[in-house]
């Protein structure tokens, strides 16, 4: 008895009970559809979080001062003054996997222009900063090294600040604003970035040369943090190590001393958030798998009913030459056809549902090949696993008893 004949026999037997076959399949169909859809939603939200974090600059590395103690009191890291401009120079000198680096000093205050005013944050940075943070200049120009050397009173405005201070002006470029009594000439406007993942408005900022902020507003010589950009996402980790080494040299730390600064890369942030949404995906997948399991039990149930109902048929098949293993294969193939057929339909419906949700509700969904292959394999395994026992029962029947079964 070859597989082709057995498949034919199984298909005919299923054809005699179309409604029942379909209802049994439905369990698997629903299971696979939900597994694929849930995994697509999980994967989609994971990727959307990753994308949002990347939009802040995927290669970005941030250096903040570490905590330290002064006379037994632990100090707030943000009030530390351990980072200096020399550190930036050291990074530029020693870190070969860093493509751009910018110091950062920021302070908040009221920006005033004409009759309008708006509380915002002014960030003192270098000309490389927009590249690091993936910011673009929409109008006007970015300031240059020339402005930094001279601590020029120029600035670029974020879109929110523009809207608040110059609601009726066609462009803010060329206007003058005042920040803590210092007049700044607006030389550019930044392209809109919207809110980030954490709900912060990324457009509510003013960028100015760091020298200007240090000397003319804050009157300090230290910097609050350093923003750097690795040459690529892959080399982010190497760049992080190089920065750490460069800062240890520049801070003259001995072997046994701990770092007095912290280096964090965007990649770490991504992996932290990814693991959260990974959990979500696993949870959704697990819940959906339960329906697949229930579908499998449905197959087993129907197969048992089928074996009992068809006892005489089994007896006849044995009498005309069907061996035990032929009967076993027949019922096993029936179960596998139901589960794999249901799996195919389920994959199709899962795709339709996933992309439907994506298009109609605008949810981020991503169907991965793995989720299709996985749920399909699970189907085949479910068919064999839950079909095996009823099939064994069928093949173990005694032909004499089976033929006389009423």
């Amino acid at each position, binding site marked *: 008895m070859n597989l082709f004949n057995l498949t*034919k026999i199984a298909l005919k037997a299923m054809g005699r009970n179309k409604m029942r076959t379909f209802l049994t399949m439905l369990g698997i169909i629903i299971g696979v559809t939900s597994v694929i859809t849930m995994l697509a939603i999980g994967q989609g939200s994971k990727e959307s979080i990753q994308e949002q974090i990347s939009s802040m600059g995927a290669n970005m590395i941030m250096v903040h001062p570490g905590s330290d103690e002064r006379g037994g009191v632990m100090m707030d890291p943000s009030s530390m003054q351990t980072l200096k401009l020399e550190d930036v120079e050291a990074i530029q000198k020693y870190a070969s996997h860093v493509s751009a680096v910018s110091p950062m000093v920021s302070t908040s205050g009221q920006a005033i222009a004409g009759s309008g005013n708006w509380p915002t944050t002014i960030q003192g940075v270098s000309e490389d900063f927009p590249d690091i943070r993936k910011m673009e200049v929409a109008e006007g120009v970015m300031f240059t090294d020339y402005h930094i050397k001279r601590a020029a009173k120029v600035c670029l405005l974020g879109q929110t600040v523009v809207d608040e201070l110059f609601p009726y002006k066609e462009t803010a470029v060329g206007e003058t604003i005042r920040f803590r009594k210092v007049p700044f000439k607006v030389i550019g406007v930044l392209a809109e970035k919207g809110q980030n993942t954490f709900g912060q408005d990324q457009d509510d900022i003013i960028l100015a040369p760091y020298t200007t902020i240090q000397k003319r507003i804050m009157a300090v010589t230290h910097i609050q943090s350093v923003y750097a950009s690795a040459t690529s996402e892959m080399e982010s980790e190497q760049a992080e190590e190089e920065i750490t080494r460069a800062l240890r040299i520049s801070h003259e730390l001995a072997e046994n001393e701990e770092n007095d600064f912290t280096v964090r890369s965007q990649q770490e942030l991504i992996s932290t958030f990814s693991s959260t949404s990974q959990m979500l995906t696993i949870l959704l997948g697990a819940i959906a798998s339960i329906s697949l399991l229930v579908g499998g039990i449905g197959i087993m149930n129907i197969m048992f009913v089928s074996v009992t109902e068809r006892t005489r048929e089994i007896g006849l*098949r044995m009498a*005309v*030459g069907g*061996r*035990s293993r032929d009967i076993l294969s027949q019922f096993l193939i029936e179960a596998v056809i139901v589960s794999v057929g249901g799996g195919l339909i389920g994959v199709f419906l899962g795709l339709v549902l996933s992309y439907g949700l994506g298009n109609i509700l605008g949810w981020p969904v991503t169907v991965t090949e793995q989720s299709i292959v996985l749920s399909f394999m699970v189907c085949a395994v479910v068919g064999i696993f839950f079909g095996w026992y009823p099939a064994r029962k069928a093949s173990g029947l005694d032909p*004499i008893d089976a*033929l006389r079964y009423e």
Partner: protein
Amino acid sequence: MPHDIIKISNLRRDFNVGAETVHALRNVSFGVKENEFLTIMGTSGSGKSTLLNILGALDKPTEGDYYLDGINVSNLSKDELAVIRNRKIGFVFQSFNLLPRTSALENVELPLMYNSGISSRRRREQAIEALRIVGLADRMKHAPNQLSGGQQQRVAIARALVNDPVMVLADEATGNLDSKTTEDIMSLFRKLNREGKTIVFVTHEHDIAGYSKRTIVLRDGEIIDDYENTGRPAQGS
């Protein structure tokens, strides 16, 4: 000289029922030659069903030898028995045992489905030929519920013939039919026998025995009579 299709010697079949041993068949010996039409008669409990199961290679004797077409069936495995049933025996049952919602043609094809040496084209040809022999060539596409009892039994007989068996084994094949149809079916068996088929018919009805050439009578697991039928069968009595 026709050779022996069946050679049975000193056959014994015991069943263990609890602590007791029931001797269903004791010291049964007989032979069936090619082209014989044999009836095995016996009341219920005589052991005829047990003998039928053994003859049909569905069961094995406790002791003794059973040669079917020169093969000693007594020491074969379950799978080997299945192959013997598939190639050497054609079964006809009392309740037809046709697959529901399956055409007559496909029902007849069934035994050949379990013989991988036969192509699907040959399978179809042989099944059509078998249906033609039983006179149902025009009912090939009909499902069992669209056929009368007699027609259903003809389909079952065609199924028994399709693998060209050395022996057709009928188990009360007319038990579910009225007397007119019984006559038709028995005439069909006689015709098949005339054309060279060896037929073994198991029944408890005396009238049926009249159609055959030879009768073996069983009682309490033993053969008590074995005689050649002479003259024409009793018609319609």
